[in-house]
C-alpha cells in the first residue's frame, strides 16, 4: 500500500479524491443541482447497493473458479453448470424440507462431491493438457445444461427466503429530506440481500484467513507458486487438488442457492455466470482471491450502474472494462505478471 503511494503519487491522489467524493455522495443529502444532473439519490444508492450485493454473488462464483485455476491451471468451463445445479438443488431442498438454511450445507456437500468426481474422472487423466480439459469441460457443460433442462424444464425457479429474512429493513443511509417536516428519509433495503452480502464478506475473509494463516493454506499457496517443488517435499498433491476442487465446486453450488434466492434460476443462467466469472477473474487477475473480490465488485457495480444510467449498453459496459484492463494490464488488476 505504502509502496504504491510512493511510486504513484498522482494516481494515489486521484483514487483518494474519487473515494472521498463517493463517501460524500453516499452520506450527504444531495443538493438540488446534483439531483438535476444525476437523478434522485435513492436511485443512486439503490444501484450502489444492488451492485455491491451482485458483486458479492459474483465473488462467490468466481472465487472458486479462480482458486481452481490458480492451483491446478484447470479451466473448468463447467463452473457455470455447477452454479445452476446448486441453484436447482437448493430449491428442491428448501421446498422439500422447509428450511432455507439447510439448503446451504447439503448443496455444498452434493456439488462438492460432483467436483471430486470431475477432478478424479476428468482432470487427473489429462493433467497439463489445457486445450483438452477446456474442450471436455465444454462438453460436460453442454450435457449438464441439457440434463437440467430435461429435469427442471425451462421455467423460472426462485428459492424463497424464510420469513425472518424477508421484507425491507431501514438503513442509516439518508436518501433525502421531507419537504414539510424537514425530517430525514432513510433508505429501505431488502434484508435478505444484506444478509447475503454479510455472508459473502465472511466467506471471503474466511478464505483469506484459511489461505494465509493455516497449514492447508500454506500448502495451497506453495502449490500455486511451484507445484513440482511441493510434490518433491513429500506432499500428496493429488489430495490437495481434490480438496481444492471440491471446495471451489461446493462454493459454486452455494452461490447457486444464493443466486436462486435473490434472482432466479432458469436455463441460460449457467452461461451467464460462467461468462461473469470469466470476466471477473480476467479483470481481477487469475488465481488471486483479492483480485476476484475487486473484479466482482467492479463488474457488479458496472452492471447495476450501467442498467440504471445507460440501460441499452449495460451488458457491453462490463466487456468494455475487460478490454481496457487487458489493454493496459494484461495480467489483471491484482494478478502477478
Amino acid at each position: 500500500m505504502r509502496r504504491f503511494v510512493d511510486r504513484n503519487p498522482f494516481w494515489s491522489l486521484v483514487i483518494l479524491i474519487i473515494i472521498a467524493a463517493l463517501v460524500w455522495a453516499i452520506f450527504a443529502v444531495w443538493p438540488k443541482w446534483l439531483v438535476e444532473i444525476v437523478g434522485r439519490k435513492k436511485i443512486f444508492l439503490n444501484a450502489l447497493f444492488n451492485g455491491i450485493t451482485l458483486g458479492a454473488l459474483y465473488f462467490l462464483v468466481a472465487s472458486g473458479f479462480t482458486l481452481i485455476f490458480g492451483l491446478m491451471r484447470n479451466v473448468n468451463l463447467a463452473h457455470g453448470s455447477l452454479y445452476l445445479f446448486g441453484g436447482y438443488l437448493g430449491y428442491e431442498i428448501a421446498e422439500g424440507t422447509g428450511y432455507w438454511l439447510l439448503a446451504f450445507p447439503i448443496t455444498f456437500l452434493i456439488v462438492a462431491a460432483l467436483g471430486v468426481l470431475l477432478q478424479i474422472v476428468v482432470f487427473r487423466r489429462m493433467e497439463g493438457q489445457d486445450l483438452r480439459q477446456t474442450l471436455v469441460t465444454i462438453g460436460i457443460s453442454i450435457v449438464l445444461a441439457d440434463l437440467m433442462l430435461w429435469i427442471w424444464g425451462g421455467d423460472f425457479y426462485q428459492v424463497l427466503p424464510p420469513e425472518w429474512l424477508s421484507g425491507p429493513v431501514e438503513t442509516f443511509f439518508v436518501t433525502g429530506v421531507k419537504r414539510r417536516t424537514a425530517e430525514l428519509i432513510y433508505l429501505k433495503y431488502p434484508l435478505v440481500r444484506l444478509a447475503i452480502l454479510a455472508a459473502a464478506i465472511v466467506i471471503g475473509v474466511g478464505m483469506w484467513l484459511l489461505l494465509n494463516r493455516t497449514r492447508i493454506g500454506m500448502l495451497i499457496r506453495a502449490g500455486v507458486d511451484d507445484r513440482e517443488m511441493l510434490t518433491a517435499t513429500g506432499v500428496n498433491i493429488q489430495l490437495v487438488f481434490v480438496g481444492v476442487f471440491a471446495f471451489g465446486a461446493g462454493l459454486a453450488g452455494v452461490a447457486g442457492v444464493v443466486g436462486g434466492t435473490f434472482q432466479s434460476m432458469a436455463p441460460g443462467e449457467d452461461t451467464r455466470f460462467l461468462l461473469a466469472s470469466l470476466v471477473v477473474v480476467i479483470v481481477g487477475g487469475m488465481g488471486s482471491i483479492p483480485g476476484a473480490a475487486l473484479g466482482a465488485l467492479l463488474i457488479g457495480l458496472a452492471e447495476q450502474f450501467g442498467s440504471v444510467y445507460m440501460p441499452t449498453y449495460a451488458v457491453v459496459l462490463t466487456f468494455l472494462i475487460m478490454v481496457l484492463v487487458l489493454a493496459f494490464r494484461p495480467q489483471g488488476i491484482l494478478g502477478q505478471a
Partner: protein
Amino acid sequence: MAVTDLPRGLTQERPRGTWVERIPVAYWVVGVILVLMPLLANDFILYQVFGWAFILGMIALSLMFLAGYGGMVSLVQMSVAGMAGYMVAIFGTSAIDTISLGWAWYVAIPVAILVAVIFGTLAGALAVRTEGIYTIMITLAIASAFFYFTRQNYIIFNGFSGFNGVLPPQLFGVDWREAVPFYYLTLFWAFVAYCAVLYVSRAPFGLALQGVRDNPRRMRALGFNVTAHRIAAYSFAAAIAGVAGILLTWQSAQISPGTAGVGPVIDILIIAVVGGLRHPVGPFIGALIYVVLSTFAIDILVGLGLGAERFRLLIGLGFLLIVFFSPDGVLGLYRQWRESRRRDPLAGGDGP
C-alpha cells in the same frame, strides 16, 4: 501434423510429372463426387445439408487455421462471420430499408469483408496479448460482447430482430438461392478457402507461424516479429470467416444476434475439434457430421425413444466422447485405425 509433413516434402526429390498428376487419387475421387453431387442428391440435401456444411466448415476452417498452425484457439470466428453478414445486410439491400444503404453488390461485399477483417484483426490484436487458455476465455468474452452489443443496438444492427430479406445478387441471370447454384457457390468458396489454407500453411508465412506455435522464444530470437505473425494470422482467418458469414446470411436470407450467439460460437469449436485440428479437411468433416446430426437428430432421437428436444444432449455426448478418447477428432481416430492395421498383430511394432 504439418510439421512432420514438412521434412518429407523438402528432403524427398520432387516426384516426376506435372502438378496435376501429383494430386493424390483421393482428391480426384472426392472432387468428382462433389461436382456430380447434384445428379445424386435432392434439393434439400444440396441446400440444407451440403450448403450449410460447406459454410460452417469454412468458419471452422478459419478456427482450425488459427488453432492448428498458430496454436491460438479463437472463439471469435463466428462473430467475425456474423459481422460480415451484418455488414452485407447494412451496406447492401435487405427488408429493413430504413437502415440498409442499398449499395451495389460489388461495393457492398468487398466492404463487408474488409470490415470483418478489420474486426477480426482488432479482436486478434487483443487476444494475442494472452496465451493458451487465456486466449479461449478472452475470445469467448469478445464473442459474447459482440452478441450483446448487436442485440442491444437498434441504430446500426437493428437489435433483437436483426435483418431479413438479405438476398444474393442476381449475377449472370442466375438465382443463387436455388439449390443447385447455391451448392456450387458454397462448394467453390469452400474449395478456394481450403486451397488458400493449404497454400498459406506451406508458404514462408505459414511456416513462420508454425514456428511461432512451437517455440515463440526461439522465433523471436531468430528475428521474427511474433506478435505481427499472430495478428496477421487472425486477419487471414477473418477473411475466410467473412466470406463464409456472407454465404451464411444468404443461405437463411437473414442475420440476427442469435446467429453469432454463445451457442453457435461453441458449435464452431465443436465442429473444428470433432473433425480434427491437424489438417484443413478436418473442419469440413466435422461440419458434415454436425449438419447431418442436427438435420436428422429428430429421427435418431425418436428412434431411441427420446423427445426431439434432446438434440443438444446428443451433440454434447458425441463431442465429449470424441475429445475424451481422441484429442485429434475424427481424423485422429482414422490415423489410429490406420496405424493399428499397419502393426503386426503377433510381433508388435511396425509390420512389413
